[in-house]
């Protein structure tokens, strides 16, 4: 069917953008969790 490849491309690129954004949130959350642990260990009163 004419232009069906473009339709698939549009959907795949769109889903990839959403997926990568979610992965970036998960990565940033994981980095912050590690930093919270590091800071809590460096603060005697927070232990």
């Amino acid at each position: 069917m004419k232009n069906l490849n473009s339709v698939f491309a549009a959907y795949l690129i769109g889903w990839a953008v959403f997926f990568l954004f979610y992965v970036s949130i998960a990565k940033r959350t994981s980095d912050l969790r590690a930093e919270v642990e590091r800071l809590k260990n460096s603060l005697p009163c927070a232990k």
Partner: protein
Amino acid sequence: MGKRIVLGAVAILLVIAAAYASFYVAPEERTMGPIQRIFYFHVGSAWAGLLAFFVCFIGNLMYVWKREPKYDWLGVAGAEVGLVFTTVVLITGPIWAHPVWGIWWTWDARLTSTFVLWLLYVSYLLLRTLIEEPGRRALLSALFGIFAFIDVPLVFGAIRWWRTQHPSPVIMGGPGSGLDPTMRKVLFFSGLAMCVLMAFLIVERYALEKMRSEVEILKREAEAQ
């Protein structure tokens, strides 16, 4: 955490169902053919993006009024998620436009106002990286966010107020506009799916910003010792 997982699962299922409906339930448009099926994803993403910017606007207004950090977190979550959806709109639009118009892009009122909207919220996020003091950063970005939202009604009205290359509205477009009943159902279902996905991403991004604020407090405590 459990509710967030459920919301994420519902969003994924709805997005898959919306894609299925776009390809297999909606009838083929007579003049454009299969390429018109991008419409459901493109318009659904646009609705969700504008709604996310509205969430950002509410967060900005509430921050200026109440000065509570939670509204700043809501503002930045809405802005970033809205920007992601608008990016998808700006990518899928030209993929649809090229075979239909013969060009990828034209500087008409709808396309230009959408691109300006994208630039405004990129500026909003850049502004936040330039100010270190949290209270000042939250206030200035809230004021900028309120200003940036002025473009949202322009994007909505562009195809109603001016003659554009972009198609006329098929929803709330006045006399002579309209859509096949099945296409209309699929469009609303796709819009709903994208809005649920948008809500899930805002919840996740809000939680991240809340955690970042806690880290800033811990860092200040560590520096004070």
